[in-house]
């Protein structure tokens, strides 16, 4: 069963961290990623650049509308994700609770939709 672990946090708080805090934080993420791998749960994972680097695109009546910034202004922003493959929601909750992002921010767990594709 695959889940997305969507990691939300306050990116301004993140930007205000000192060099040492950043290094310590990075070590936690590295350890966590390693742990996910050891569990056999890790499928993929990335961190995202801040929403100040985001571009929003819509096509309205055939016209491309390209705007600067994120889709929605919120207190916590999507900062990264993991895709995991685990037995059930309890394991996914375990993975989310151990993620460093769950301490200062919020993890949203979303099951990945599986499609019944035609064979051949």
């Amino acid at each position, binding site marked *: *069963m695959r889940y997305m672990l969507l990691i939300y946090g306050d990116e301004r708080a993140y930007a205000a961290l000192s060099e040492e805090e950043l290094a310590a934080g990075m070590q936690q993420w590295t350890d966590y990623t390693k742990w996910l791998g050891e569990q056999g749960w890790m499928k993929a994972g990335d961190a995202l650049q801040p929403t100040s680097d985001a571009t929003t695109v819509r096509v309205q009546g055939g016209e491309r509308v390209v705007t600067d910034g994120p889709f929605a202004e919120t207190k916590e922003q999507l900062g990264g994700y993991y895709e995991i493959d685990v*037995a*059930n*929601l*309890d394991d*996914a*909750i375990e993975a989310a609770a151990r993620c460093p992002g769950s301490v200062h921010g919020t993890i949203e*767990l979303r*099951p990945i939709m599986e499609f*019944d594709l035609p064979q051949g």
Partner: protein
Amino acid sequence: MTEREAVGTTDRSAGAVDRLFRHERGRAVAALIRATGDFDLAEESVQEAFEAALRRWPREGVPVSPGAWIVTTARNRAIDRLRRDRVGRAKVEASERLRELQTMTDDPAEIPDERLRLIFTCCHPALPIDARVALTLRTVGGLTTREIARAFLSSEPAIQQRIVRAKRKIREAAIPYRVPPPELMRNRRDGVLAVLYLIFNEGYGATQGTYIRRDLCDEAIWLTRVLNGLLPVDPEVRGLLALMLLQHSRRDARTDDAGRLVLLQDQDRARWDHDAIDEALAMLDETLELRAPGPYQLQAAIAALHARAPRPEHTDWPQIAALYGALARMEPGPVVELNRAVAVAMADGPGPGLTLVEPLADRLDGYHLFHSARADLLMRLERREEALEAYRRAAELATAPAEREFLARRIAEASASGP
């Protein structure tokens, strides 16, 4: 009268189905979910099995093992359904389930009780709390959606939708159908107990409509008994069961013939259910000997001190105040502090009680029982004007008609006692 009662009044075998439905439906559904991994398939098959029983038992007589007959018939219905209407990927999964089902025994002694899995799944923290309540009452308790809607003054479609969404989430988010492993047990057990106590409390003092909903209290007690019977000895499960039995033992004395509230100190203690009290006290004594205290055991111990007092003036208020103190250390919160303050007022007088009540004003300003407790103390201190004001504030905040009526009487009495 419930639908189940209505079925049971005419025909003896219909009555047998009715009683069986109450006790065996949850068990059969739990076994079928275990085998099929599919809530809807399990419930539909069990429903069909009960319908078949209603048709056949009056003619053919009640089988020796009615419960096993229901599970076996439901299993056969599930096999028929799986053969009939599954396609694609679902069909592959279905044939795996079929194999599981076909290995299910016909021997009732070997059909395991899977209701623990069902209870923990229905009370999973990833489900919204109102869905946990509705799903537990529906699948474990065997209540109809109509009965649940009536109990919570909601509409049938709303309850139905809540249950459909919860089942969908169990399936799509892969909430496991299992008893939690040891490292999750304590937390999940607390979650189950919270759901059961919530059901009980809605029956104990309904926020709207008829004040005491006995059927809901009975349901919560029955569910807690099932949990207690299936889990290894757990002091908090027993503590909750004892607490519910003690609170519910006062049901006939808590309101008068006109449905008006009667305070604990004014209740006719002969009308308490002394069989229930005896059962609860014995259970609690045995449980406290395990020396693993918890919030439910403490609350039961407090209720037990009331139950043990033959007359109100025999109540051991200093001990009740001490137990609330212990509860506050375990689960700090302003409502526990308020209860402790009331007990202190009974033990040491209204002055010391009020001293403990006043600092809670900020946190409990929106809670009607804070204002009514404060008003009672002010009355005892003969500060009538302040008491009246506090009673009025309580009456504004109360929602249950029985409580509003009670507070209106208090206001009238306080006004009349003036100079």
